[in-house]
C-alpha cells in the first residue's frame, strides 16, 4: 500500500528523525511505499507532495506536538500516534496500519 506520514517531536532535534527512519525501514521491509515529511527545529523537510497524498491509502502522523498542514489530509484515513510508539516497535505499528487499512 501507499503510506504518507509526518514526524514531529517536542524539541525537533532527534526523535522526529529517528521516528522517520524507523517508519521508512519498517514500511519498506513490509513491501509498502512510504514518504515521510519531518517537521523539526529547522522547519519542514521532505515535504509531501499533493500527488503523494492523493495516492496514499493511509496517513500516519507520528508526533508529540501539533503538526502543520493537517488539513491536507482531510478525508484520508489517518492514524495518529506519539513518536515513542513508532521508535519502540515500528514493525508492530506497520502491522497495525495494515489491519486498519485492510481489515482481515
Amino acid at each position, binding site marked *: 500500500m501507499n503510506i504518507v506520514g509526518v514526524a514531529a517531536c*517536542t*524539541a525537533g*532535534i*532527534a*526523535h*522526529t*528523525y*529517528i521516528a522517520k*527512519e*524507523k517508519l*521508512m*525501514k519498517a514500511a*519498506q*521491509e513490509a513491501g509498502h511505499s512510504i514518504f515521510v515529511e519531518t517537521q*523539526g*527545529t*529547522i522547519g519542514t*523537510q*521532505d515535504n509531501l507532495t499533493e500527488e503523494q497524498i492523493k495516492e496514499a491509502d493511509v496517513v500516519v502522523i507520528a508526533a*508529540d506536538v501539533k503538526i502543520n498542514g493537517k488539513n491536507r489530509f482531510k478525508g484520508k484515513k489517518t492514524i495518529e500516534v506519539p513518536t*515513542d510508539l513508532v*521508535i*519502540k516497535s515500528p514493525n508492530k505499528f506497520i502491522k497495525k496500519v495494515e489491519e486498519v487499512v485492510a481489515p482481515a
Partner: protein
Amino acid sequence: MEQLETIDLQKVIKKELITVDLEATTKEGVIYELTDLLYEGGCLTDQEAFIKDVFLREKEGATGLGNGIAIPHGKSGSVLKTRIAVGISKNNISWESLDDKPVNAIILFAVQDSDANTTHILLLQQVAIFLADEDFLERLKNARSEEEVIELFTKNKKRNGEY
C-alpha cells in the same frame, strides 16, 4: 534531505567529548559528567544553565530509546558550539526508557538556541538516523575506545533511505 559527506560528522563529534569509561553510575551523574566534557571542550558558557535545560527536556518524556541507549538533549542559550558528547558505561544506568530497561550508552546533544548554522542540525539528524539502526547501537555499546566511537559515527556507510 541532502546527502551528507561522512567527514562532516567530525564537525559535531570530537574525541575529547567522548568517554568509553563513564565514572558516574546514576542518570544525573552521567549528565553532569558529559556536561563537564562539553564545558572543558569550550562548548558551553554555563554548565548549570545547560543542565537545567537538559532536565527540562527530560521532564517532557523519556529520552531512553530502548536497546540500552539514551539521548538526553538540551537546546540552550548556554551552548556556544553545537556538539554531541558520548558516554559508554560498564554499568547499567537507570533511565526512563521506552523498554523500561537501563542504559549503557548515552549521547548528550548540546544544541545552540539559535543555531544559524543549519548544517549542524543536519548533522544531528544524521546521528539520529544512525540511532534507528540496531546494528549501529550494538557496536556503539560495545565500543572500547574513543577512536572506535568516532569511527562508528564518521565511517558509517549507511545513508538516509538505504536499507
